[in-house]
């Protein structure tokens, strides 16, 4: 009898332990992989999916690479170091970013967001194909200061990567093409299309408040020519009159060597501004009030200043205090909480 109860007791305890163990390691909620889907209120993407079809294995490999500091010279800096999801994939709080050995770059980290619709990359548009984009931060002295050759060598010798490349691309021999395409697959999936604005445009239920609606009207009248819906950038390069920065950055001119392009930078999107301070190519403004104040009061006359900012001999965009408040209310509807918290885009 005693023995029997001991046996029963032992059985119960072990069952409990097994159950507890099971509980300790809960099964990850498997989110089904949707692949790339164009939001119904977005135009057709610009990226060449025909040469890089997004697969679950390719996307997950790209995500692992994106968050892996192995891409930098001394394995300390990952893409995710300066492109932080909670900051809309920018470097929140940094005017210019610090990379390897705390070296400082010359520009504010741009958002990894809706890149499938982008025809050029970087603030000066020097890169014309998303697949070629990662080469810049990997090899730049102030960012990762690594060589492509060494990155590929390190990945090839890694215990996990050859198998992951085998899964994603059918070959465990890692090529720069497959490495870059995996990173593209992750970045292409960084889609921000679930703001309140998007829900309204897709007639999913929500509606603008009166202030937001008025802000939307003012935006359409005074901002939309450059910050075009629904991506809130027309992908053009413009001199927005903020004046020459301290480092003399000439912007688009460095790429085209055309005098007419001096001090022009790519029009950034207005999405997710709540998460992406500071603003402008060199992060010189920390608040949206400062940005609006710049456009209203401080637009600098320069030979390449955008013509939209000098109409009827008036520099800048006239806005009343009330209009500013309403614009800010509208801009607030462009923040996409889902994007900055989406678990499939997070480091695993």
């Amino acid at each position, binding site marked *: 009898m005693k023995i029997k109860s001991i046996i029963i007791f032992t059985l119960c305890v072990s069952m409990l332990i097994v159950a507890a163990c099971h509980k300790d390691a809960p099964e990850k909620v498997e989110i089904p992989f949707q692949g790339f889907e164009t939001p119904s209120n977005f135009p057709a993407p610009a990226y060449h999916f025909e040469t890089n079809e997004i697969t679950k294995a390719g996307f997950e490999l790209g995500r692992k690479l994106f968050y892996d500091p192995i891409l930098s010279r001394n394995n300390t800096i990952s893409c995710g170091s300066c492109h932080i999801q909670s900051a809309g994939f920018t470097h929140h709080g940094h005017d210019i970013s610090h990379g390897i050995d705390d070296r400082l770059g010359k520009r504010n980290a741009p958002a990894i967001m809706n890149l499938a619709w982008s025809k050029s990359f*970087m603030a000066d548009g020097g890169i014309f194909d998303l697949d070629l984009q990662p080469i810049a931060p990997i090899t730049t002295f102030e960012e990762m200061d690594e060589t492509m*050759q060494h990155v590929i060598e390190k990945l090839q010798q890694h215990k996990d990567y050859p198998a992951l490349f085998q899964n994603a691309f059918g070959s465990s021999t890692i090529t720069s*093409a497959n490495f870059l395409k995996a990173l593209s697959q992750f970045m292409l999936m960084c889609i921000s299309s679930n703001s309140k604005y998007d829900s309204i445009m897709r007639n999913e239920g929500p509606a603008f408040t009166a202030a937001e609606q008025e802000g939307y009207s003012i935006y359409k009248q005074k901002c939309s020519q450059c910050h075009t819906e629904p991506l809130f950038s027309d992908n053009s390069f413009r001199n927005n009159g903020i004046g020459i920065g301290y480092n003399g950055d000439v912007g688009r001119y460095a790429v085209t*060597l055309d005098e007419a392009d001096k001090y022009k930078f790519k029009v950034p999107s207005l999405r997710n501004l709540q998460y992406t301070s500071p603003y402008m190519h060199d992060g010189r403004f920390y608040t949206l009030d400062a940005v609006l104040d710049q456009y209203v009061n401080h637009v600098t006359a320069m030979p390449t200043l955008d013509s939209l900012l000098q109409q009827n001999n008036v520099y800048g965009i006239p806005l009343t205090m009330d209009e500013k408040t309403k614009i800010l209310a509208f801009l607030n509807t462009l923040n996409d909480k889902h994007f900055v918290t989406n678990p499939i885009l997070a480091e695993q």
Partner: protein
Amino acid sequence: MKTINKLFILSISLLSVFASCKKEKKEPVFDDKDLAPLSIEFDNIVGGKNLILNSETYTNAAGEDYKISLLEYYISNIKVRKADGTEYVVPQDNSYFLIKEGDEDHEEALVNVPEGDYTSLAFTVGIDSLRSTMDVSKRTGVLDPASPENDGLYWGWNSGYIFFKMEGTSSAAPVDGSGQHIFRYHIGGFGGYSSPTINNIKTITLDLTERGPALVRKDKKSNIHLMVDIDKVLSGATTVSIAANPSVMFSDYSVNIANNYATMFRHDHTENE
């Protein structure tokens, strides 16, 4: 009568010599499905001297002394032509080469062309705009930014290849951050992707008639030996002063250096063995 007879015999014998000559040198039928090897050797010199990295001192037209520590350039899009105008373009995928001074594996371009006698050679110094904008999977070998062969001849920030790279020291060069008198010429620019910009792609055509056509045969080795006078880089239509321009990369001035180096190739001889 005797003289005529003699002449007659002479003519006959001469004719037979010609005939046999012709027979021996008979040019094969052009068949672009049936290829034979042809090499093009790039022999870098400075003026009348062989180029020797690091140790030898040279003087440019501006009167400045300089030593060369690194010299690399891309050769691509090779074409050969026969006297009758028949042309063969080496398929693009097999037509990219990096010439690197001091590296035995990178001093020639080895291609396959149909058998034939070629009197003209054309190639590009640099990488054509089509390949410069192709999908990343089409960038293999010397075009792969991750390949040791590529050796960093790629601009990440402004997508494009560096066509020609020459670095060295000169007492005329200002002291740089590392305390050395270094000059750096990194020349590229394929014309721009969405906005036009500098185009430093140079196409070189060389006539081989005078110094020996390339007689390409399957059982022979034909090598077109070019002399590449690096002196021309700094001393051409533009006299480049190292003191005034110690570092030239993606800038308007680079066009002058590219125009200079476009004149540095000459055909010296052809080895048909």
